[in-house]
């Protein structure tokens, strides 16, 4: 009842508050290029950082979940599961502070190496940033952040793999790897997808970590290690909002609306995948 009202309210109020920026003449929008030109680099930066984080985190999360469920000793596994849950609850600002202080300086060396040796790939074209506050760092921080979340989802699914399937394949002489490939992964595949989608949604909406770590300068570039980075929607809102007024605020709210729409779509896809799985698993 109320919950639908709240969700509709979120969309409605954002729309109402953002409206002036839709109808405002293009000159009044910050950056003087009109609304679309203002938001587009932000959308690009958001997607780039989130996808980067997902590409790093998702395979790792699968491996960690496998380690916890099938490789670690039972006692250790319980403890690790708890630690993962706890880490999923650590506030994002802490990851942001950590990324700025520890990770950013640490990426400087590897970034130089990348631009020297792999510079022909557009991703690593350089010149490398001297502060380390690059898209690469932001992606890494986001990856570290969403890692526990994705792992928690996948771990749940792997734990629910029917014991009979596992034992049957082991009894047929499969090695542990083959057992995992044939019994665990097919069962957990949809949860891997949905967990990654949830992680993606989290990475898309992540604000503070990116705001602290990324030194944004606008512009659309695939270059991960230079000092010119596109900002992300959420970080841009957090950075600009306290100093904005009038149409600028409306524009920020409009960009928030775009972010809302993107995450809504991602989450809906994730939920649809999860629901399809519960339909299936009832039958098997």
């Amino acid at each position, binding site marked *: *009842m*109320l*919950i*639908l009202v709240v*969700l509709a309210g*979120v969309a409605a*109020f*954002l729309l*109402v*508050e953002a409206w002036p920026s839709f109808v405002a003449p293009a000159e009044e929008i910050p950056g003087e290029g009109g609304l679309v030109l203002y938001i587009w680099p932000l959308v690009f930066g958001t997607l780039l950082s989130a996808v980067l984080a997902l590409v790093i985190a998702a395979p*790792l999360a699968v*491996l*960690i979940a496998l*380690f916890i469920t099938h*490789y*670690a000793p039972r006692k250790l596994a319980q403890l690790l599961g*708890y630690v993962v849950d*706890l880490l999923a*609850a*650590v*506030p*994002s*600002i*802490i990851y*942001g*502070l*950590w990324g700025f202080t*520890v990770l950013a300086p640490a990426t400087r060396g590897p970034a130089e190496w990348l631009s020297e040796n792999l510079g022909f790939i557009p991703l690593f074209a350089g010149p490398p940033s001297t502060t380390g506050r690059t898209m690469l760092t932001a992606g890494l921080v986001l990856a*570290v952040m969403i890692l*526990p979340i994705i792992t928690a989802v996948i771990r749940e699914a792997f734990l629910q793999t029917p014991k009979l399937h596992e034992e*049957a394949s082991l009894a*047929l*002489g499969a*090695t*542990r*790897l*083959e057992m995992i490939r044939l*019994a665990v992964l*097919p*069962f957990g595949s949809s949860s891997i997808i949905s967990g990654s989608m949830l992680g993606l*949604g*989290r990475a898309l*909406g*992540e*604000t*503070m970590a990116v705001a*602290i770590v990324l030194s944004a300068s606008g512009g659309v570039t695939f270059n991960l290690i230079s000092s010119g980075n596109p900002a992300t929607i*959420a970080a841009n*809102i*957090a950075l600009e*909002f306290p100093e904005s007024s009038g149409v600028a605020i409306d524009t920020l*709210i409009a960009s*928030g609306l775009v*972010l*809302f729409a993107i*995450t809504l779509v991602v*989450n*809906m896809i994730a*939920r649809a995948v999860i629901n399809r799985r519960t339909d299936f*698993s009832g039958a098997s």
Partner: protein
Amino acid sequence: MSTTTSPPPPTESVEPPRETKSLVRGTLPRWAPWGVLAAAIVISALAVSLFGFGVAPFVLLTAVLHTAGIAAWSRWVEGGRKAADRSFTAVVTSAFLLALTPLISVVVTVISKGMDRFDARFFTYSMRGVVGEGGGAYHAIMGTLITSGLAALMSVPIGLATAIYLVEYGQGKLARAITFFVDVMTGIPSIVAGLFAYALFALVFGPGTVNGFAGAVALSVLMIPIVVRSSEEMLKIVPDDLREAAFALGTPKWKVILRVVLPTAVAGISTGVTLALARVVGETAPLLIATGATGSTNLNPFSGQMATLSVFSYYEYASPGVPFEPSLDRAWTAALTLMLIVMVLNLAARSISLLFAPKAGR
């Protein structure tokens, strides 16, 4: 789901005219993984000391050497399938260790940097009129407690009511739609919730209304779906026998819910609420927008900007004072405090569920 296992070797057929030395292939000794690991460590230590690399290349080289070594040895003695298995074990373990490194680094950094200012002054002084050293986060801690408390006060009744509706009354399209949207709402970016609260208050109370209550509204938008999800799960596992027994005694439905269902599920629900609170306490972005920040203690959530721990930490970091070390120290200590609060809440949730849970008897 059909499990297609690899076809077992045709045991019943006649022995193919193939050279097999024996039925059992060799196996590596039990100490093999550790032995290879030790060898890999030694070799990469030599390499690192020769070329003068840092710690990270050393670890990476060790992992690669170990994986390659165990795979090669196993392929030599045990054959391809076992080799694949062993190398996958090595890959999984090293991936786990690799992922653990940054997470441990986060915790260690926060603790070591935060301990500098983890003193009584930090918890008893506000930042009013403080330039440079000294000062504390009393105002921010109070702000965090007030906003999160208000958020809990709003979202627990709403979330609980929704969960009761879904479990006890809801059926058909409406209930399914609500479940779906609750799920979707869990994924709302926190900053969007902050914008929503800002927009709401700007419309109702005039533009630029920023106070603690707006922050609480933003937080409760984030908190409601979590509360609904966890309470729903808890209400669902209340045994139907209890409900039916109460109905059979002629109890009206509302009374059954109030006196039978809720008391049975109360432990689980309070665990869920505590976990939701832990999630929300650390939120920065919505408070940054809806609650603002101030240096002085403001205990009235309905007027004026209010400092909160997370925002305090952010501002101390983003715009430090002239000698910037004290500000950074305060930022880290605020982060440490926040992390401690989150951990205490998590532990509290665990112990609540441990204390009350086994009553239902599964």
